[in-house]
C-alpha cells in the first residue's frame, strides 16, 4: 500500500463529513431522548451554537500544562481513530490511512484519549475529577475487555489485522456480516460498546448527580469545546470500527449514515431508560456478562 499525498485532503474531507454528521446525530439523539421525555428538545443547530460559543471563550484559570493538553489528547484520540480507519469501503477518497495492521492502532486510539484525559483532569486537582478518573479508567478497562476479546475473535475469524480486509470479507449480502457469522462476538462487543459510550447505565464516572461531571469538572471555555468536539467525533469513530468489524462496513455515505445511526441508537435506547450502575456494579457486569461471552466467541472461532 503506497502513500499518496492526495490522501491527506481526502482524509480531512472525511473528517469534515464525519464531524458535521456527528453534530447532527448528537442533536438528533438528544432530541429523541427529549421526545421520550415528552419534550421538543433542542433546535437542530443548537449543538453548533454551543460549540461556537465555547470555542469563543477564553479562560484565565490555569492548572498546568497537562491540564491544557488533556482535551487535546482526548481530541487526538478521536481524530486519530477516524484518520486510521477506512470509513467507506472501496472508496479511494474515504479510505483514509488504513493499512495492514490498523486494527491494532485503532484499539490503541480508543484508549489513548481516555488516558490523555486522565492526565489532564488529574492535573486539575479537583477531587471529583480524581474520583471520576479512577472510576472511568477502571470501568473503561473492564468494558474494553469484552470488546478486545471480540476483536480478537473477529481477527482470528478473518485471519487479518486489517480492517479493510475484514470489511472486504463481509461483503456480499448481510448474511455474511460478522453479526450473523459470529453473533456471540458481536454481543460481547456490544456490551463493551455500551460501556464506552458514556451513557447510562455505564456513565458513573460522569454521574452529575453523584460526583458532578467527573473528570471534566474543571474544564471550561475552549477546553470544554475541544472535549465537546471529541464527544461528537469519538463515538462516530468508534462506531465506524464496529460497523466495519461487525456490521459489514459501508460502501457509500448513505449506508454509512444509516448504519452509524442505528448503532448509535443502541446506546441511546438503553441509556435513556436505565439508571446508572455503581462503578463496581458495572465492572461486575462486564466481568460476568461481557468477559465470558468474549472468551466464548474466541473459543468458537
Amino acid at each position, binding site marked *: 500500500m503506497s502513500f499518496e499525498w492526495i490522501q491527506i485532503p481526502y482524509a480531512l474531507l472525511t473528517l469534515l463529513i464525519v464531524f458535521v454528521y456527528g453534530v447532527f446525530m448528537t442533536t438528533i439523539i438528544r432530541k429523541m431522548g*427529549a*421526545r*421520550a421525555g*415528552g419534550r*421538543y428538545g433542542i433546535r437542530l443547530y443548537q449543538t453548533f451554537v454551543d460549540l461556537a460559543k465555547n470555542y469563543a471563550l477564553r479562560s484565565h484559570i490555569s492548572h498546568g500544562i497537562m491540564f491544557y493538553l488533556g482535551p487535546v489528547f482526548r481530541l487526538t484520540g478521536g481524530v486519530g481513530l477516524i484518520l486510521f480507519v477506512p470509513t467507506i469501503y472501496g472508496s479511494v477518497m474515504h479510505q483514509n490511512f488504513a493499512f495492514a495492521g490498523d486494527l491494532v492502532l485503532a484499539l490503541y486510539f480508543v484508549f489513548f484519549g481516555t488516558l490523555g484525559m486522565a492526565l489532564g483532569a488529574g492535573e486539575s486537582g479537583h477531587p471529583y475529577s480524581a474520583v471520576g478518573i479512577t472510576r472511568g479508567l477502571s470501568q473503561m478497562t473492564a468494558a474494553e475487555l469484552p470488546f478486545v476479546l471480540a476483536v480478537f475473535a473477529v481477527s482470528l475469524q478473518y485471519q487479518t489485522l486489517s480492517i479493510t480486509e475484514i470489511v472486504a470479507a463481509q461483503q456480499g449480502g448481510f448474511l455474511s456480516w460478522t453479526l450473523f457469522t459470529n453473533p456471540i462476538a458481536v454481543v460481547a462487543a456490544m456490551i463493551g460498546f455500551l460501556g464506552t459510550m458514556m451513557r447510562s447505565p455505564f456513565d458513573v464516572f460522569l454521574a452529575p448527580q453523584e460526583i458532578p461531571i467527573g473528570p471534566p469538572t474543571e474544564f471550561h471555555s475552549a477546553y470544554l469545546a475541544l472535549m465537546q468536539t471529541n464527544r461528537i467525533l469519538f463515538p462516530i469513530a468508534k462506531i465506524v470500527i464496529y460497523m466495519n468489524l461487525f456490521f459489514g462496513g459501508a460502501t457509500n455515505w448513505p449506508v454509512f449514515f444509516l448504519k452509524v445511526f442505528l448503532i448509535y441508537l443502541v446506546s441511546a*435506547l438503553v441509556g*435513556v*431508560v436505565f439508571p446508572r450502575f455503581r462503578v463496581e456494579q458495572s465492572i461486575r457486569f462486564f466481568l460476568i456478562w461481557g468477559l465470558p461471552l468474549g472468551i466464548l466467541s474466541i473459543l468458537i472461532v
Partner: protein
Amino acid sequence: MRDVLSPFTAWKHLFREPVTVLDPLNDRPGADRYRGFHQNDLEKCIGCGTCEVICQNAAIDMVPVSDPEDGDSGLRPMIDYGRCCWCALCVDVCMTGSLTMSNDYVWADANPDVFRFTPGVDPKPWNEEEKGYQRPGARVLASTERVHMGERTAKDRIDNFEEIVAGYTREEAMIEADRCVECGLCVATCPAHMDIPDYIKAIREQDYDKGLQLLYQTNPFSEVCGRVCTHNCETACAARHDGDPIAIRWLKRHITDEVPYERYVDLIGKPEAATGRKVAIVGSGPAGLTTAYDLARMGHKVVVYEARKSPGGMPRYGIPEYRLPYDMLDRDIDVIRAMGVEIVCNTRIGEDITMETLRADNDAVVLSIGLHLGRSTRIPGAESPDVDTAVPLLRKITDGEEVPVPEKLVVIGGGNVAMDIARSMARLQQVKHGKVGVTVTALESFDHFLADADEVRESREEGIEIFDARGPQEIVTFKSGKRKGRVKGLRTWLCDSIFDDQGRFNPHYDESDELVHPADMVIEAIGQAADVSILGKDLTEALEWTRGRIRVDVDGQTSEPWLWSAGDCVNGPDVVHAVADGHRVAQSINAMLAAKEEAAT
C-alpha cells in the same frame, strides 16, 4: 428478564406529540383567577392606603396623583415588584374594590426601575384586561356591616321626649371600632378635623381616658356632637364604599358615655396662666362657646352673653330633647365653664348691654348669634294665625311654654329642622290626643332629601306622613264661618325640578298634580335667619355684608378689626361646623392678642 425489557416501554413516547409549550411567552395566558400585575380603577380608588398598611413586605407606596378632596386623598398605590409577593392581600383588603390583579404575568425588561409603577396611572397592556384576580364576594378581611345601634321602639318613644338612641355597649363599640382601617380620610372632611382614627383606636384599646382627651382637644361639644353631629366624616369613610360607614358619631358618644363625668376636667387639663386679656362673646351656641373654651384655655378672660334663660344656643333651643337630652348639653357647657368661662344669661345685646360697651370693655368681641328667626314661605295664607315657623316653636317647647297642639298639622320643609318640629309636635299630639296627625311636605324628592335618612325612617315609624317633591302653593284658610281665617289645609303641586339650567333655585311645578293636605295648623321649616337687629344701626352700616350675612374672612374676622363672627350666622346651620368656626376664630383672636402683647412690650 421482565425488569430488563420493561423499561424500554418508555420509548413509546418517542412518536407522541411533545407536551411542552413551544412559546411560553405568548401561548400561555394566566388562568382566569391568576394573580398577575395589579390594576387599579382610579375612579373608584380613594387613596385610603389600606393596601399599603396590609402589605407584609412594604411593596406599596402611596404617591400623589390628583388633588385631594373629601373622601379621596388623591394618593394612589405605587407598587414595587421587587418586593411584591403576589399574595393579593391588598386586593382582598381594598376598601373600594378598585385594586385588582390582571392575569398578565409575563413581562421582561432589562431596566429594574420599570418594575415599580402606579397601576392605573402608568399605561400598561393589562390595564384593560378583564381576567385576573378580583376579590371574590364581599370584603372579608374587615367587617362591612355596622353594629346595630339599639334604640327605643316607635311605640315607646312617641309619647315622651326621652332619648331614643341607646348608645353602644363596650362590646358593641369594640366590634364597631374594630371595623376602622385608620386611613384618616375622615379627618379632612370633619370641619373640626377631629382625630377620628385615634379616638377609635382608643376604644379598641379600651383607653377611654385617652379617647376623651383626644375628643376635647378638637371639640368641646363632644357630648353634643356624639349625638347630633351631621357626621360628614361618615360620608368620607372608606368603609362606606363597600358596606356601611363606621358609626363614627356613635363611637364618639360611646367614649363620653364611658368616662365618668367627674373625671372630664381632670383629663382635659388646666387652662394656661391668665394673660389678662378680655374677650366678649355674644351668643352661647357651639361656635361661641368653642371660641370661649379655646380662648379660656389659652388663658384669656372670656365672658359669654346669652339672651335666653339657658346657654347652649341651637342645640338647646333647636334640637328636641329626644335627640339631645339637655343634661348632656349641660355637661359640655359645665366643662367649658370649668375652664373659667363666664356665661351671663338673660342678657340681650342691644337692650341690656350694647355692642359699643362690649367693644370698649374687651380686647375683642365675637358675634355668634346663630339663626334663630324662622323664614316664611310667604305663600298666600301664610299670614294666618295658625301658621308658625319651626324655630320659635321648638324654642317654646324647650322652655316649656304653651304651644298649640292641633289634631292635624302640616310641616313645610324637608330638612332636619322640619323633622325635628314634626316629631316634637307628634309627641305632643300623642300626649294630648292619643294619636299622631303630622304631614310633612318637602320640595325635594327622596333621592335628594335634605334630612338624614335615619330621621326620615324614624319619623315614619312614629306615624308621620312624608310627601316628597311637593311645592307649597297656598295655605288654604276658611273663607267664612266661625273659623274664618283659620287654616284648613295646604295646597301643593308636584315639583319636577328645583334648580334651573344655570343651577339657580327656581322650582318648576306640575300643576296638574295638585294635592290639598288638610290641617289645622301649618308650620314652616324652610330655613332660618339671624337676628341682626342687636347690632344697632351704626354697626350694621359699618359692617360689610354678603347675601344677607356678615362678611368674614377665612379666620372669621369681620370688616371691623375688633369684631369676629362665627357659627351658623355666617356659615349656615351645622353644629360641628360651628365648633370648627369657633376654633378658627379663637386662633385668630389669640394671634391678634399675642401681636398686641408683643407690640406692648
